[in-house]
């Protein structure tokens, strides 16, 4: 009998897992179950549809219906997985029409993702607070703009909050961001690097209130204002971007253990504590390459890499997940920002002793017209002199530097090696001395 693989979730992690399972096992019965109407689309693209750079939400679909058909993947949309029995090896599903089915599996991949998180704020049950997680969420925000919304309050200055904020400003809305912490992008950047992004956003007219928590949602029938830091802010649109929490209910109800991050615990094969049950993407935790601690980074890049590993294992192959550095980049108006590995703040929190070096340079030769500023910050562990983190903020050319630093960290490169790196140069493309190399020299001087 052919192998039966069930995957709960059909976006980044789920579809990747299905493809990897099919690659290994050409005859397996592979079923994807998703509650959503749409499958195989990019959540990361949602803010750019709001902003108008992408024509419509449908354009975010990465995997065409042909892809599912050609790979013989049985896609069940608008279908909810309601229970898992790890003893009987079954998944119970309910279709949109309310039909209940019990599907047996040989391997199960849980890719249930994460849900927007709402802290216990007074008035949070009032209607009118939107979030941006799915195409349906995006359509609601788009409809509100089309209905004439002129202003928005976004709660949270993380990647999603700021990307949505920029999108709304592109559509002509007045945007106020409320962030409880003293800086924007607290996961991505240290305060000194985040300041560059903050200044750019403020120049563009974004109102950013840091060190201000949302205390209450005000309004009679629906939210019309928030109280934040003692100040009442009225707006037409309210978007919660406090962050996301792993969606683990299905797993917990089935007795599948969570780890210390409250996401589903996995081993190197992305298998949970229950044999033949895998967990991937935003609902799963895995080890951080530097700290070796479990982590739930909730990034699309990690979802696809974990999906590929779990799918291969679920299909009978052998594959190991190499761990998380949480490399991430974003573009906000004309500024790009990214991080790989640990920020200085995260390194200190993890009890690492580090030395940092930050260098400001240009993205082309200084004399070349159109050269844009760029700043690099390296985080280096004191004893081993290994690079454990890198942040880049600049007008362009950020992503490939983040990738380069990510490779360096993964290979255990020391700052001494980076200071001697062989780099390329041409005036219209970069500076003679690569700023990553100068930053490494700076760190070496501090280590002397």
């Amino acid at each position, binding site marked *: 009998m052919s192998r039966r693989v069930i995957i709960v979730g059909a976006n980044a992690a789920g579809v990747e897992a299905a493809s990897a399972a099919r690659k290994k096992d050409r005859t397996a019965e592979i079923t994807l179950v998703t509650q959503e109407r749409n499958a195989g689309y990019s959540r990361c693209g949602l803010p750019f549809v709001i902003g108008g750079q992408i024509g419509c939400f449908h354009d975010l679909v990465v995997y065409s219906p*042909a892809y599912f*058909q050609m790979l013989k993947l049985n896609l069940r949309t608008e279908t909810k997985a309601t229970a898992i029995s790890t003893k009987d090896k079954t998944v119970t599903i309910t279709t949109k029409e309310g039909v209940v089915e019990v599907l047996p599996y040989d391997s199960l991949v849980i890719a249930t993702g994460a849900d927007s998180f709402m802290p216990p704020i007074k008035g949070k049950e009032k209607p009118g607070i939107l979030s941006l997680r799915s195409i349906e969420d995006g359509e609601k925000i788009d409809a509100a703009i089309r209905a004439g919304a002129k202003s928005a309050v976004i709660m949270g200055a993380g990647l999603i909050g700021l990307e949505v904020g920029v999108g709304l400003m592109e559509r002509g809305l007045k945007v106020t961001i409320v962030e409880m912490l003293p800086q924007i992008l607290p996961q991505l950047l240290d305060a000194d690097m985040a300041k560059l992004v903050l200044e750019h956003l403020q120049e563009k007219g974004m109102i950013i209130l840091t060190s201000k928590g949302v205390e209450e949602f005000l309004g009679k029938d629906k939210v019309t204002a928030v109280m934040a830091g003692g100040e009442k802010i009225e707006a037409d649109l309210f978007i919660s971007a406090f962050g996301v929490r792993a969606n683990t209910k299905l797993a917990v109800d089935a007795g599948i253990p969570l780890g210390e991050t409250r996401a589903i615990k996995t081993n190197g094969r992305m298998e949970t504590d229950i044999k033949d049950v895998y967990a991937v993407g935003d609902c799963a935790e895995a080890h951080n390459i530097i700290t070796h601690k479990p982590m739930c980074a909730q990034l699309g890049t990690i979802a696809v890499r974990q999906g590929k590993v779990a799918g291969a294992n679920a299909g009978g192959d052998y594959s190991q997940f190499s761990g998380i550095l949480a490399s991430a980049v974003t573009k906000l108006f004309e500024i790009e920002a990214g991080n790989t590995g640990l920020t200085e703040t995260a390194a200190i929190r993890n009890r690492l002793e580090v030395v940092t070096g930050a260098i400001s340079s240009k993205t082309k030769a200084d004399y070349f017209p159109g050269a844009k500023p760029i700043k690099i910050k390296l985080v280096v562990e004191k004893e081993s002199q290994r690079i454990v983190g890198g942040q880049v903020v600049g007008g362009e050319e950020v992503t490939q530097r983040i990738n380069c630093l990510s490779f360096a960290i993964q290979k255990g490169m020391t700052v001494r090696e980076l200071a001697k790196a062989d780099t390329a140069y041409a005036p219209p493309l970069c500076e003679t001395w690569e700023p990553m190399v100068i930053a490494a020299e700076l760190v070496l001087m501090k280590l002397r």
Partner: protein
Amino acid sequence: MVKVESYEVPEGLYFSKDFEWVKVEGDKIRMGITDYAQKSLREIVYAELPSVGTEVTQGEPYGTLESVKAVSDLVAAVSGTIQEVNDEVQSKPETLNEDPYTKGWLLVVKPSNLQAELVNLMDFDKSVEWHRAQVASKC
């Protein structure tokens, strides 16, 4: 030739819902995969095809295409006996991505029941309509 979104649909061919095209050439037919199929699979790295003399059956798999990300069965659009196999797509599978309708043909088949089986395929107009339904925008 028309384009449905970025997918090319040429005139003068028959199409199956398994993403194959068929070109009638006298008493033989030539078949291959559509532009929509190659774009969905992306970079094709391996084509496993049967040899000359093998029988293929409409609606049944006869080979496999593997891309960096995916693997898919090739499903015969008509039944018959294979007369020619395109060696070039086996040595250079990227031909399927570059030119799926001409250089990237897969098989030449002597059909066994062509007139009856053509009814199961789509002509140009129907194929354009079908491609449009596949990629139908919900916006």
